[in-house]
């Protein structure tokens, strides 16, 4: 029996919602044994009697498993690719600034132009949940929202301007090695704790997203403190806020409204990131082109490979549920 159970708990394939039942090779006498504690079982049935009909009859294996398909999985992985690419672009920009190849002001100008364009695009699409409010009030609320956006943008701009001299000397007493290691870990934290969800449903939690944004901002802060002038620091910080704070919001919105746009953005990001890495490593236009091509091919392979790997791992999935699991209470929040 031990072997029987162990074998049954390690299935060769993921079987959705299959009931495990004892093979009913035998007919038991009727009404002799009941799965009850208060009833006195007949003297023939000792306490360790195991009834083949009812034993483990409520056990369910993999009750809520839905098998993955290859192409939807690849499509979903574009979100991760986008984020990894934007982190790569940010790092390449920093390296360019440190090595003096790129002017920080040009980077932040391009970034700001992109942000402004993104905001205009984001603003032109009406907010997702269409309220039943009349047209006039909606327009005015949108105007108010625009005003508040401009206000907060101005506030961030001024705060960064004021903070830049302080940030410049923040880690003067720390060795550069520590800074590289630390920012590496922080960016990895950012990538792993980033909220890749669509921002809908019950799974949309706020905590991991804030952790990831904070890690990214901290990484760019310590990186910025390695830069020589206040302008450099200000530019990098502003750029990091654009990349890590605002760009994800735009990407999520774009995925909502246009799938084609999302795919094109992914493609553009992959090419840009590949090119940026190529230039950073070798320099020159050829390196950029080679980097773009290599990056695109590698990304496509990784997306396909990881999706296939995840699907092939599904056969090891073995979720056992039964009456012993704590029930999930269903409560209607009627007073909220």
């Amino acid at each position, binding site marked *: 029996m031990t072997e029987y159970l*162990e074998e049954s708990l390690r299935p060769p394939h993921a079987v959705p919602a299959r009931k495990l039942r004892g093979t009913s090779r035998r007919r038991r006498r009727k009404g002799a044994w009941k799965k009850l504690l*208060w009833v006195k079982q007949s003297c023939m049935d000792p306490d360790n009697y195991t009834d083949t009909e009812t034993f483990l009859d409520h056990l369910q294996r993999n009750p809520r498993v839905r098998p993955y398909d290859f192409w939807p999985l690849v499509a979903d992985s574009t979100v991760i690719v986008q984020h990894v690419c934007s982190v790569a672009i940010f790092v390449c920009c920093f390296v360019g600034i440190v090595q003096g190849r790129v002017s920080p002001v040009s980077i932040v100008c391009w970034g700001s132009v992109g942000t402004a364009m993104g905001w205009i695009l984001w603003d032109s699409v009406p907010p997702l949940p269409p309220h039943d409010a009349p047209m006039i009030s909606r327009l005015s609320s949108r105007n108010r929202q625009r005003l508040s956006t401009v206000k907060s943008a101005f506030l961030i701009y001024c705060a960064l301007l004021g903070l830049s001299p302080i940030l410049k000397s923040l880690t003067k007493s720390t060795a550069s090695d520590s800074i590289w290691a630390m920012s590496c870990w922080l960016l990895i934290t950012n990538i792993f704790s980033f909220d890749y969800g669509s921002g809908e449903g019950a799974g949309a939690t706020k905590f991991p997203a804030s952790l990831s944004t904070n890690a990214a901002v901290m990484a760019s802060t310590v990186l910025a403190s390695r830069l020589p002038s206040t302008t450099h620091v200000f530019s990098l910080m502003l750029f990091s806020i654009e990349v890590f704070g605002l760009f994800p919001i735009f990407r999520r919105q774009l995925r909502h409204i246009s799938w084609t746009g999302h795919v094109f953005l992914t493609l553009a990001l992959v090419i840009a990131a590949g090119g940026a890495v190529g230039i950073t490593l070798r320099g020159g236009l050829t390196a950029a082109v080679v980097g773009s091509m290599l990056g695109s091919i590698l990304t496509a392979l990784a997306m396909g490979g990881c999706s296939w790997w995840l699907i092939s791992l599904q056969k090891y999935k073995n979720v056992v549920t039964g009456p012993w699991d704590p029930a*999930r209470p269903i409560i209607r929040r009627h007073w909220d």
Partner: protein
Amino acid sequence: MRPLSLGAGTCSRAVTKGRTFPRSMVSDFFFPQPGGIESHIYQLSTKLIDRGHKVIIITHAYKGRTGVRYLTNGLKVYHVPFLVIYRESTMPTVFSFFPIFRNIVIREQIQIVHGHASLSSFCHEAILHARTMGLRTVFTDHSLFGFADAGSILTNKLLKFTLSDVDHVICVSHTCKENTVLRASLDPLMVSVIPNAVVAENFRPLEQGEPPRPIGPNDIITIVVISRLFYNKGTDLLIATIPRILSSHPNVRFIIAGSGPKAIDLEQMLERNVLQDKVEMLGPVRHEEVRDVMVRGHIYLHPSLTEAFGTVLVEAASCGLYVVCTRVGGIPEVLPQHMTTFAKPEEDDLVMATSKAIAALRSNKVRTDRFHDQVKMMYSWTDVAQRTERVYKGIQGDISPEEFYGYYPGQGWEASGDRVRSFALIDRLKRYYGCGVWAGKLFCLCVVIDVLIYVLLEMWFPRANIDIARSWPKKLKQKETADSTRDSPHRIGSTT
């Protein structure tokens, strides 16, 4: 982790011959801490002593309670000083308990070690050491565990370690048995189901004998809830249902006893809905006072989300309360249909079930006055002790393996031959090795070290130098009455 009580019980034949073999119960959880497992150990031990066995209990030291204590009936309790880490559970140290454990076992001439509760590290250690010393072991599981979260996985691995070499396992309900069999990959025939019981004398309804006054359509019906206010006790469900029940039934009152982290939410709900005059919050009550609270009500509401047995349901029914409970865990097995209304663990269904119960009481269809006597016939500690005794006899070899494990031809689980667990080290290592790729090797290492420690202890503190404790003098009369009631396996005897 409750106090391991090592219970060494004499078999009946030995008693009549005038020899006594002691048993010991081991768990982290024992008096003075209140709780279900604690009282289970105490009641079972007392009844086993009544049946002529010698029982001692080994637990860790509580505040102000160290050393050896005697309880009623000559029940001896060893409070071993140990580091307590979390909610009265001791630090899992694997080997450090062995020297004092060996000393106690030799001193008290223990033959069977009976460990309680799967969260008790004391119990797991005692079972490992007892097997090393060549004693028979029994384990009682009191709780249900899932398979998904990290804590459960760790506990299950630990349980597998202990139970891969245990002689027999006792579970408190059939659901609990299924759970334990799955968690520890056990042979189901090595697992017995012996439920908890109640001391029915302590849970008597208010007026006995005289016919009950029928409940009129406008009489107040009181609903009692006694539970710790935790998430897994379903306090959220309770919070959601109370306002709805009270708004649709004006002549209903609630009495809620118990404390816990969810008490604040409950009080907030009362304030938001201005229900203070209809819901009485008593705070924590002692186990002795539970009956006095219960008899003030007509319905007992139990919205728990998981429960292995649910002793409190039996106590409520014994007090003559109609029971409304959620259909989770082992609860559906506990009480017959006419004493309970079951609900799904959903707010709407619980409200509906409670309304149904109120309607049933108002129409005087439910004979709650008969509940006490019926419950008394269903659950008694004497019965539990008798059935536990059969397990002891089975693993001691007093009952033949065919009779003990049963012989069911063609049912799928014939005797695999490994049920009578041999003490040979190589056999033990084989059993532990099968626990997992890495865990198996680690477990084998632990067992080998344990055996080496045992050899070392035998040389360092020789057996001959350990005094034998004198057992508590017993009245012969009790033994004889116990002997005379012994033979029918399911008789409910009266307590002495």
